[in-house]
């Protein structure tokens, strides 16, 4: 039995092989003369100071957080959208309620300043 996803798997493997071949061919063709200066971390000619672990702002995490919560709603909304034509009006009202509750969450985050990027 052949599923629809078989071709996706073949595509993944083929693309990986082709791109891998390109990388390997390039590594065979190109010159290879590493020197200490070449292998240094590039920072516009300055020497690297300190750790790569610069302090990240928590804003990135908050953005990812809001994204995750909207992402998980998609997994529930997409099947409902597929079934949309056969839904009753009551069901659609509930979906609207679901979406509006999410909108409230977003507005709350907005009010709290979680979406502001200073």
């Amino acid at each position, binding site marked *: 039995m*052949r599923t*629809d*996803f*078989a*071709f*996706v798997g*073949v*595509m993944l*493997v*083929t*693309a*990986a092989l*082709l*791109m*891998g071949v*390109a*990388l390997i061919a*390039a*590594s065979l*063709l*190109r*010159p290879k003369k*590493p020197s*200490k200066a070449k*292998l*240094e*971390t*590039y*920072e*516009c000619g300055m020497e*690297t100071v300190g750790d*790569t672990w*610069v302090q990240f702002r928590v804003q*990135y995490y908050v*953005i*990812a957080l809001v*994204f995750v919560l*909207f*992402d998980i709603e*998609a997994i529930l*909304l997409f099947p409902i959208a*597929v079934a*949309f*034509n*056969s*839904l*009753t009006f009551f069901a*659609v009202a509930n*979906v*609207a309620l679901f979406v*509006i509750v*999410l*909108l409230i969450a*977003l*507005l709350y985050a*907005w009010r709290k300043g979680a*979406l*502001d*990027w*200073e």
Partner: protein
Amino acid sequence: MNFINDLLKIIGDFIAGIINSIFGFSPFLADLVTMGLAAIILCTFAALSFMGLTYVERKVVARIQDRVGPNQAGPFGLLQPIADGIKMFTKEDTTPAAADRWVYNLAPLVIAVFALTTYAVLPFAPGVVGTNLNVGVFFIIAIGSGSIVAIIMAGWGSNNKYALLGAFRTVAQLVGYEVPMLLNVLPVVMITGSLGLVDIINQQTTLNGNPGIPFIVFFPFSALVFLISGIAETARSPFDLLEAESEIVAGFHIEYSGMKFALFFLGEYVNALAVAFVFSTLFLGGYAGPVLPPYIWLLLKAAVVFFIFMWLRGTLPRIRVDQMHNLNWKFFVPVSIVHLVVVMVLMKLFVTSPALAQANGGILVTPAAQAAILFVASTLVLIGSLTVAARRARIMRLQEEAVLEQRRAENIAAVSA
């Protein structure tokens, strides 16, 4: 006429026939070889279009900026992509000593592979599609997360402050713009009742293959937001914050050169072209069109969309980080949700099929009338939201100006005292 129309399909069937006759002893092997060949053709198509697009884009942007663009290699600079390719292959490529070797070297591969995999589900003509997944739209959006992972890998693997910072910025942008994309695909899925791309195209065609009403008429708001999110999702100008040279040097691919950099570049262009194809499929009716063969129609539509990308790139300045986040979280997402609710309720009120009208209630209308109603509603949402946003922006600007005015007055007072 039929021969021209179904050219791709006929060629495909021909090749499949040859393969079947060679590997007739094992249907499994025949299947595998057919699929492998199709995958190679798709990858080659993507890679060739990447080469072509770099040239076209440079020419177009040059014209917009009143320059000539590449004109040295070959006639009109047509050999420029090949020259670039040779350079990419032969350029020395170092792995920084501080880098995490495995992660650093795998990242470009991951981004290119995931970008190419998108093409597995795109329908190019009737019957010519890698695989008609019944979750096609969902698949395309999900496979985009692969590039997010690759970008984080590149940023971290380089072990470079700017790379990591650029990767973080990019990821925050990409994940943010995935939300309006998801929310604006939903109306299309609702009206089609399927996630498959072929079903979505069929919904936009009439029985004889001519275009019916494309979904851009139903949901102009969704189309607009999807297009802009698509540009942001592929990190093209004006959303190319990740390579803001003046701020973070070159973003997450600062340490990459040679072939690895080429793969990042390829991923970017292949993704952008995929967005153009997906937009044509979802909102412009895909390969449906009169007179011309279907694949030409699809290419034409995608070319128009891609030209819009290039046009924006040539004319708009890069937006700031806070503007980018504000546009997404404070405009696109909330208004998309409101739009979704409005469209949902209207689609349930005005139905086109008598059976559904009888079963669930609702007013029976013709498809054209439904399209008109949805068009008006969607446009109203668009105009209304733009008005509100413009008013808010004006108020904020006035406040800022007042503060500046006050400060200036204080300064003058201080100087004169």
